């Protein structure tokens, strides 16, 4: 597991959105076969960074390489799975119909549909229209879509928000299994508890990278056991600079 290869390489990334500087020369790496947590308060630029990595964000300058290709290139469209923060499904189709359509677009095997429905524990709701699902169920159905093609890199924007704790634990266990099988995961959250599940952390604040460490290294550097406290300490240490 000690591969030093990075699945994502972001260099000097500058992004403006709506006249505002969202990412100001951000550089970071996401290591292959690991779970990297992208953490920071909401509005700090996490989603913009993820959009740049999947190649749907117009960037002003800098570069983003994903699996050794420029982000958004044609070859990556089957190799990268993306879960948007807002669930994006057809509300007037059932969960299964949504998955069937996306599976055909992705060229994924029909058998995957049943598997991903199991993974996100939606077997009881598979025939329901997506528009009739609760918020949490809809988020899971959307996540199922991102898992369909068995991508090498999964970019998940707040996949566990609003889910019940049991399901959240199960999903993290699933992410762990995926990572063990060689999949790289980049998972964002604005809740620091989620950091515990990650191998590496990217901490962001106001469009800048505050730290890129493993949870243990972060604890060691700051002398704080609780990761939320560690994050605060880190920000205070940097503030007077």
């Amino acid at each position: 597991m000690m591969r030093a290869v990075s699945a994502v390489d972001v260099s000097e990334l500058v992004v403006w959105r709506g006249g505002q500087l969202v990412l100001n020369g951000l550089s970071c790496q996401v290591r292959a076969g690991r779970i990297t947590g992208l953490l920071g308060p909401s509005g700090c630029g996490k989603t913009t960074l993820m959009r740049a990595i999947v190649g749907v964000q117009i960037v002003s300058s800098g570069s983003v390489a994903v699996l050794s290709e420029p982000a958004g290139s044609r070859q990556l469209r089957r190799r990268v799975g993306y879960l948007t923060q807002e669930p994006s499904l057809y509300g007037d189709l059932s969960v299964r119909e949504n998955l069937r359509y996306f599976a055909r677009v992705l060229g994924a095997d029909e058998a995957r549909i049943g598997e991903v429905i199991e993974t996100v524990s939606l077997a009881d709701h598979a025939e329901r229209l997506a528009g009739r699902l609760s918020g949490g169920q809809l988020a899971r159905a959307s996540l199922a879509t991102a898992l369909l093609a068995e991508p090498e890199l999964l970019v998940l924007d707040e996949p566990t928000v609003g889910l019940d704790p049991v399901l959240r634990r199960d999903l993290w266990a699933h992410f762990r299994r995926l990572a063990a099988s060689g999949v790289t995961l980049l998972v964002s959250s604005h809740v620091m508890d989620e950091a515990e599940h990650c191998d590496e952390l990217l901490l962001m604040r106001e469009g800048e990278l505050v730290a890129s460490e493993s949870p243990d290294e972060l604890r060691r550097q700051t002398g704080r056991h609780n990761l939320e406290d560690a994050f605060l300490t880190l920000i205070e240490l940097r503030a007077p600079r």
Partner: protein
Amino acid sequence: MSVRITLATAIRVLTQLRRDPRTVALLLAVPPVLLTLLKYVFQQQPRAFQTVGAPLVGLFPFTTMFLVTSITMLRERSTGTLERLMTMPLAKLDLLLGYGLAFAAVGSIQALITAGVGFALLGLGVAGSTPLVIALAVGNAVLGMALGLFTSAFARTEFQAIQFFPAVVLPQLLLCGLFVPRARMAPLLQGVSDALPLTYAFDGLQRAAVRGALGARGELDIAVIAGATLLAMSLGAATLRRRSR
């Protein structure tokens, strides 16, 4: 481009439409009802009903497909499904052709029902060629779809998308020769009418309904309809962006 993805998209669009039986009922029932209404409006002028009625059979699919596509495409943009598709191995052409196939199918069913009611029940003249009217109706459905697709890019909300109907479709209906023969329009209006695709759609339909043969001018009509469809489709494709701000 992929046949698999194009067909999957067409099936998906049709499944979505099927989930909305009220819209389907309106799509299929409103044109024949309007045509019936028109017959009674023109009770004192049966000739006028003959000249206007048959081409209308082929114009309904244009107007309805314009609306249906605008709204469906706007939803695709605003719910994030378009962005999701753009991260997947789907060519823009797959999406456009998928929509085109689905709505051409719906447009033909609509035209068949309207034509059936018009020709069989309302006594519309069949001096011309019924199959040709229906074929043109399908072409118009696809033209309406292409225009709807393009204009939907300029709408942020469904309210705005609906407003494009009076803005884009009604002027074409007014100027195409349906209400007043083009020859009797002021030269300026004639000039504007020359530049609008529906003018050619109406002309072609009239020829098909009255004479049953297209002739040289009718072939020009078809060429213009096809060209306008392709142009609107390419412009629509240009508004589907893989990357956004």
